[in-house]
């Protein structure tokens, strides 16, 4: 589903990713673990299409299409989702309005009609209940005044309502207490299936106890250094990243 080939990425002339190759097939959950500064967030932003991340070499292919030059909204409409490490506040735009606008923008890009207001509200109600989100949050500006946990729940709410084919979760566990972590993981697990793939980016193994990955990759120095099964995460938890940090 996602194929990244020999990806080199620069920010302000500084090379962060140095020949990263990664493939996540349909239906699988992959985890990327790595020390701080290894390029984890850069990877998530460049796949989502953020400005300022210059791909100097290599390509990103999604659903058989080269998306390297696409705008972020075009990628989203193809079914790509990025759960932010630091969700952004948007004062004045309510979560409900934001969700509806996003859903309809994606539908429009795919040549579909707008979602009916009734269907939208039904969907929203079902998903907020599932995630334990208080309805009041939906009436507030997106993420404005939300706690860290609420922001992450809101990310998962967006994820489950937009129902993408592929989701990158960037440090979704950071700033979460254990209850919030469980809720978030349940939300993600409920979406798992043979048609969907996930790329879970995390520094710690903790999240992977709740969202069990099929494959674990170690990212350091802008490249995948090692790939293995779930046991690799436990190994990292015990030994730390030292061996990879010193590898360069």
């Amino acid at each position: 589903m996602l194929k990244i080939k020999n990806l080199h990425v620069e920010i302000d002339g500084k090379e962060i990713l140095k020949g990263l190759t990664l493939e996540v097939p349909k239906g699988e959950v992959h985890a990327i673990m790595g020390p701080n500064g290894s390029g984890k967030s850069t990877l998530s932003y460049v796949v989502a299409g953020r400005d300022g991340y210059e791909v100097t070499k290599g390509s990103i292919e999604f659903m058989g299409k080269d998306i390297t030059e696409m705008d972020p909204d075009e990628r989203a409409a193809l079914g790509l989702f990025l759960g932010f490490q630091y969700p952004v506040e948007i004062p004045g735009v309510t979560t409900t309005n934001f969700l509806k606008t996003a859903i309809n923008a994606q539908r429009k890009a795919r040549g579909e009609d707008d979602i009916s207001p009734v269907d939208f509200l039904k969907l929203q109600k079902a998903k907020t209940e599932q995630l334990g989100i208080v309805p009041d949050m939906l009436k507030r500006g997106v993420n404005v005044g939300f706690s860290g946990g609420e922001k992450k729940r809101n990310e998962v709410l967006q994820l489950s309502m937009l129902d993408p084919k592929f989701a990158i979760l960037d440090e979704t566990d950071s700033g979460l207490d254990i209850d919030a972590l469980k809720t978030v993981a349940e939300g993600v697990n409920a979406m798992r299936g043979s048609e969907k793939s996930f790329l879970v980016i995390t520094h710690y193994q903790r999240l992977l106890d709740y969202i069990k990955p099929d494959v674990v990759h170690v990212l350091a120095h802008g490249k995948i250094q090692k790939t293995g099964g779930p046991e690799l995460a436990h190994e990292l938890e015990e030994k730390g990243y030292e061996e990879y940090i010193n590898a360069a």
Partner: protein
Amino acid sequence: MLPETRHENPDWLDALRETGAEVFAATGLPTPANEDWKYSSLRKYEKEGFQISDIIGEIDTNDLPKKLLDKRIVFVNGFFQPRLSDQVEGLKAVSLLDWLSNEPEAVQENLVDVGNLSDMPLKAENTAHIRDGVALVLDAGVHIEKPIEILYLSTTKGVEVKPKYYLRNLFVLHDGAHLNVLENYQGQGTYAVNHVCDIALHENAEFKHYRLQNEDKNAYHFCHTRLMHHARSSYETVTCTRGACFSRHDIQSLLIGAEVSCNINGLYMLNGVQHFDTKILADHMEPNGVSKQLYKGILDDETRAVFQGKVHVRRPAQGTDGRQLSHAVLLSTAAEIDAKPELEIYADDVQCAHGATSGALDEDPLFYMQSRGIPKDQARRLLLGSFLSEVIEDIDCAAIQSIFQAQIDDWLLSHQGAL
């Protein structure tokens, strides 16, 4: 075609005009050397060579812009047009000429206290040319809660010079009266219009006063508002500015009674070479007054906005709550905002705050929205729209709120290419 003047000019009015003329002759137009006009030059305006005009071309209903509310009162080129206007129940008078012919003493009482004209050259000029204007007078206890539109249409139809129009507007709300008004400034061509608006809010009166300044992009718009706030009166105003190449709005709110509430808010959307200047004074003289100012705007191209807001709290005005905020989004590097919020406080038990921000549209929310599938131009519109909507979110009259919302949406859509 001038409306018949049903009343001969009373002596006091002639004297008032003469005073205005003398003061204006002495002051001339303000220049940036005058602190109040530091950021705004009238040189271009002077060069246009506007001339006083009494001509009102044949205007019928078809020439008027779409009616925004149920009831509309129409002025064309400075004069009341009864033929084009609706009847509104509960009003003692509608136009200055009307009121002057019925109750000249009452007009005198409300008109003669003009303040210090030498500090207000454009008001002095207007005073020299007092003719007609809106005069809405509500007796004690009269409530007009349903908003009334007042349309000020300026045209150059049939006028050979570049015309200059003067309006002298009065709103008088006696004890406990309520009024809700939308002033709509529209026009076609290169003209100048000078409005002076005097508002008297007697005890417990409540005035909701909305303004839509959508003059021709070649027009010059001046408006000087002076508000006398008696005890426990309340005033709420929102001005939406998107027209005129040059506009200047002065608001002096004199809180002469205790426990008054005064909200002066504005939003503006500028492009091309538009220049918009607002100067506000909230002068707290008695205890427990609340005054709030919130101005938000979007500036594109080579536009410039000026916000000079001042909260003055005199010694007796204990318990004052005064706030002022100015926020601007600059869409172009050539756009400019000059914000000068000021507090001058002589009482000790007060709460006052002020602040100003300006900057480009934040990239983080834009990327966040795009990553959810919202195209960049739509994301920008949504962000800018929500930025401006804060100014109108507390308007409790749904009809007015949706008129302003439509103005915001319309402006943002018409700038889709530019955004």
